[in-house]
């Protein structure tokens, strides 16, 4: 039995849930714009001229990667909520493979993240951030990869959780440090050794850095903003995706059955 149909059905369900939840739709669109506008704007006004690059654009690329990563991770973790409401049992007692369920979920939450990506780019244009169509296009492609990585990360975190309440508590703990270790708002070109180590194991770092590599390609400030080569970022993202997905799915399924 081809499992593409079930994967698409699972993905569509997540998108429909978002589109039918107006408050959630508004919140997911507005929050990243606040981060860019308020935080980025104030940092640009106070620190921008000392850094030698546009802090608003720096924040925009950081928030772009962070939002997509976090939205898909959080969305995949909603499988916990489904489990407590028994809906995920409907999926897990079906004959499709467990990987298809997880991939469908990642794909669905990526679709949920995409309206945010569009809103963030639109907002960037409104506030005067300029880039070529190629640069924005590159950012969108990176965005898709970031969604996949975030989703796989969500699976790995999910496999260690037993309740929605625990998911909420853990999520802040695993996400918030990455805001700073990935350099979303703060430049991290130079870090103390212990922070550098922690930064290098944070998945969000590579997601944000790859986005910046695409956006700042060919610009003079690229050397000040981009941390690693895009090839390295891609390799790490690919490797992390594979490991998180395989290990996370195996642990999650085993945890479902071996209670």
């Amino acid at each position, binding site marked *: *039995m*081809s499992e*593409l*149909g*079930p994967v*698409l*059905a699972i993905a*569509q*369900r997540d998108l*429909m*849930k978002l589109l*039918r*939840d107006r408050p959630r739709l508004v919140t997911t669109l507005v929050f990243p714009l606040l981060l860019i506008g308020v935080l980025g704007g104030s940092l640009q006004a106070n620190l921008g001229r000392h850094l030698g690059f546009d802090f608003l654009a720096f924040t925009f690329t950081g928030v772009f990667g962070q939002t997509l990563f976090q939205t898909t991770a959080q969305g995949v973790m909603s499988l916990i909520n489904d489990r407590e*409401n*028994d*809906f995920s*049992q*409907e*999926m*897990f*007692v*079906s*004959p*499709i*493979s467990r990987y298809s369920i997880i991939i469908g979920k990642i794909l669905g939450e990526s679709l949920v993240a995409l309206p945010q990506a569009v809103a963030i780019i639109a907002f960037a244009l409104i506030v005067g951030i300029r880039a070529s169509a190629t640069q924005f296009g590159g950012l969108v492609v990176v965005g898709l990869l970031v969604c996949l990585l975030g989703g796989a990360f969500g699976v790995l975190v999910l496999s260690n959780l037993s309740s929605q309440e625990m998911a909420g508590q853990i999520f802040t703990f695993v996400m918030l440090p990455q805001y700073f270790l990935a350099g979303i708002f703060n430049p991290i070109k130079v870090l103390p050794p212990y922070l550098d180590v922690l930064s290098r194991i944070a998945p969000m770092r590579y997601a944000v850095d790859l986005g910046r590599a695409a956006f700042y390609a060919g610009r003079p400030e690229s050397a000040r903003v981009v941390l690693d080569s895009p090839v390295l970022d891609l390799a790490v993202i690919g490797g992390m995706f594979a490991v998180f997905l395989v290990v996370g799915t195996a642990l999650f399924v085993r945890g*479902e*059955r*071996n*209670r």
Partner: protein
Amino acid sequence: MGELTGGIGPAAARVAIIQVEDLVKRYRKGKTNAVDGISFSVQPGEFFALLGPNGAGKTTTISILTTTLSPTSGRVRIGGADVVTQASAVRRQVGIIFQNPSLDMNLTGEENVRFHAVLYGVYPYRPQFRLMPAAYREHVLEMAALLNIEGDVFRPIKMLSGGTRRKLEIIRSLMHRPAVLFLDEPTRGLDANGRRNLWEYLRGVQAAGTTVFLTTHYLEEAEGADSVCIINKGRIVSFGPPSRIKAELVTEHVLIDADDRERLRAELLTRGVVFAETPLFRIKLDGRSAHQLLKAIDTPLSVVTVHQPSLEDAYLSIIGKADE
């Protein structure tokens, strides 16, 4: 009670659709076995009821049979497939109604059904109802007519009553034509009318040849079962058709009373009739007819009740003895 076999002998057991052998389950943080070495089999087309008090092991057993929980030891086969090593093959053959509702409240009734149909490969994926194959669209409209929800099937699930949602779940679970339908307390949360309607529908499902495996707290629901298995503290304490369980364990009795209780008591003692005052006078029939007994009593009676054992009486008697 060790190994118990449904059906009518070894030949029937060989073609059993559900076979459970020495099943044990101890949860990771459990101090005792939730299921402690149970064995039984269920024949194709049978209506099998698993009864027991809270914590007896019913949901654990059904979770293992439906592949959502792994056993600690023992062997379970559904339609010839092992639930541990051939879980996917088992899943194709079973439909499940969970104890808690498993519909997505964000979707409409039709979207819930479509989701299931695509998951089980019954119909191909399409993003909208109108793009689905004609056979699917007809099936949905027939189903909606059956449930009297023609106007509601395309509205969100939260608009439907609890009973209708349950029926929708059952119809959804039958879309892939499973050989076995597992029902884990299917009428929980429904009012009496909802329960009755649901059972009318389920009787039709069973009559069509689907094996029905039920766990329930409502013992009257198990009265129509072909086999009843009573489980307590993880072990089987009784097994067989409801009639046999009732006949073996509970006797018929008569409850009588009179305005002149002293006179009635004296008469019963004089006649050597064994009775218990509960506070009414309770007399076991022990094979006598109620008519014979009452004809022999001269004292005018104010209360006469003939009590025939129900499955609930048998169940309470069995569980009570098992607890002693």
